[in-house]
């Protein structure tokens, strides 16, 4: 990664809250989240349900439901703040520069319109392609996502295709206008294992061919291990760890990451798996101090009272914890609140 190059996407202090009807309850879905994505990178945000990762994705595209509001932060895409764009400007960016694929294809695809129509819709909106040229491009896209016999598929409807095919159609729509950044939110969760593998390989190939930057959002550590270069771990609306993929698997820094790795399934070392006690917290009612402390095996007094600040373990890794659990972390002096915000180098 070229450190001097400006990142494609720079998120600074993003804070998104959900408000109940009369505003008396606030769910802090995303709390002061900052990260950067470099061009051509494969970054993953990993976390369980309720950690805020999907809300981050929806915030980036500014497609949040009415009960949610981005209350603070900047989303710098190629240097420009998306939060300052008008709805018209955002509509031109969404689908063309920034694209997203979601988990449930039956929600992403309209059941009453043909496949050709749905892929064509995005192209019509963002390009000047029409008529034969448009059809040609649609057919090429279908071939690009490895759907054979595209002429026939154009006229078919979503319900006539399998889950794996639909996911590829959704991918085709998302890639149709050659976006610079593709966000995949749990894109393979509903797919069969063998189909999931086909799909992940397809995304890798597409990235090689078009240079699109990929931001994955998932809870599946296997996808992280298979596909991603850099990892961001979220818990209770906050980023708790960032690291390149090898290091985080070899030597996790945050107790939550460590516990997650130990609780996840894989065919190796089945007997060494340990569950995490308790449940993910209620975002409307977070515990004081560190949000993870009720479930943390290493928690101490400070964790119960003060929310940890993010500290740098080395130039490429950081963790939001008073007592990081990496092997080398004994050498890191305990940070004081006054030191908060002193690790700007990780933000590109």
């Amino acid at each position, binding site marked *: 990664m070229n450190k001097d190059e400006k990142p494609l996407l720079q998120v600074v202090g993003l804070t998104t809250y959900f408000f109940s009807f009369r505003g008396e309850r606030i769910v802090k879905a995303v709390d002061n989240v900052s990260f950067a994505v470099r061009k051509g990178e494969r970054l993953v945000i990993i976390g369980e349900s309720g950690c805020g990762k999907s809300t981050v994705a929806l915030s980036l595209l500014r497609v949040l439901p009415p009960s949610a509001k981005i209350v603070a932060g900047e989303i710098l895409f190629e240097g420009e703040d998306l939060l300052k764009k008008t709805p018209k400007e955002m509509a031109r960016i969404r689908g063309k520069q920034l694209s997203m694929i979601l988990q449930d294809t039956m929600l992403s695809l309209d059941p009453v319109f043909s496949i050709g129509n749905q892929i064509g819709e995005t192209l019509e909106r963002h390009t000047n392609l029409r008529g034969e040229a448009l059809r040609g491009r649609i057919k090429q896209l279908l071939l690009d996502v490895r759907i054979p016999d595209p002429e026939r598929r154009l006229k078919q409807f979503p319900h006539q295709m399998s889950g794996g095919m639909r996911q590829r159609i959704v991918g085709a729509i998302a890639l149709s206008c050659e976006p610079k950044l593709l966000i995949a939110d749990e894109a393979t969760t509903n797919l069969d*294992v063998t189909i999931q593998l086909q799909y992940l390989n397809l995304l890798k190939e597409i990235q090689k061919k078009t240079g699109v930057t990929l931001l994955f959002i998932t809870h599946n550590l296997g996808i992280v291990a298979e596909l991603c270069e850099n990892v961001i771990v979220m818990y209770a609306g906050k980023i708790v760890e960032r690291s390149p993929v090898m290091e985080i698997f070899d030597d996790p820094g945050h107790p939550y990451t460590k516990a997650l790795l130990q609780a996840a399934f894989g065919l*190796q070392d089945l007997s060494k798996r340990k569950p995490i006690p308790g449940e993910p917290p209620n975002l409307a009612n977070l515990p004081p101090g560190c949000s993870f402390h009720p479930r943390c095996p290493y928690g101490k007094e400070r964790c119960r009272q003060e929310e940890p600040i993010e500290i740098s373990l080395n130039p490429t890794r950081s963790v939001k914890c008073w007592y990081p659990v990496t092997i080398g972390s004994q050498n890191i002096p305990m940070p004081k609140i006054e030191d908060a915000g002193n690790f700007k180098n990780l933000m590109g």
Partner: protein
Amino acid sequence: MTSKGEVNYLLQTRGLKVYFPLKAGIIRDRVIGWIKALDDVDITLRRSQVVGLVGESGSGKTTLGKALLLLEKATGGEILYEGKNVYAFNKEEIKAYRRNVKTVFQDPFASLSPRFRIKEIIGEPLEVGAGMNKKEVEERAAEVLGMVGLDPGLMKVFPHELSGGQRQRVAIARAISTNSKVIILDEPTSALDVSVRLQIVHLLMELQNRLQLSYLLIGHDLAMVAYMSTDIAVMYLGKIVEFAETKELLRNTVHPYTQALISAALPDHPRDKKERTILAEEIASPLNIPPGCRFHPRCIQRKATCAEREPLLAPVGENHLVACHLDGQKAASSSI
């Protein structure tokens, strides 16, 4: 109950077939085809055994679970409980069967009625099936809630007040409340958070050990199924293609589909990324089952006979059955 030398199976299917008719026509429903969801399946379950059932969409594993719960009627074949034909049961015997064979579904949000309190949810099978009175129900509910690690005080709450993991525990409590012997677990942890999954798995294993339960564990996550099961059956398009003890299945995988499933599992660690053969083609639809071996269009090792004749399950080792033409040891498929 059984003849000399035969093993006492608690639950068993013989040649079980479940076909769904595909109808067309506006005025008169013509049957134009069959969806062969389950096609001649033999499965056995002993007391205290955990048999895992792995397969992808269209494999028939969920249909098998439903058939065993009497939620789908078989088109052919039989289900034997303690050696007796379930389809010949009278009302009382069916009631007893339903007390003994329970299920835990995948979605803890959908499987608990939102309008009932936990006490009523757990109490319903006790009142209806076991004829308990109010006091007995309350005592038993408190007891099973404790057994699944929940505070008995939660009897008074509604499902929406509980988390996913807690709801699944309630579903498990409901399944053991009638002193059942067999539990059909249909993807019991797929809808739960990763950090909670292992908790539920440990709970299920602990209960299995304590109460000597038999589980039929249906799942698509081979790792999780392997963790919990003593034996595993791999299904593809309505048939069992391989069956073996878990360790044997993982160590000596024979069927190309099983090999593909294991190979398709994502790595545990980025350094374990490997070169894989990615299966060509989509999984075929049960509407349009390929001739010969159902898996042959996706099989990289296929030969000519694979498209002509359907292989039968035959032994390849100690307690290891495979349905494939390729293994030289099997004579069954070529002798027909």
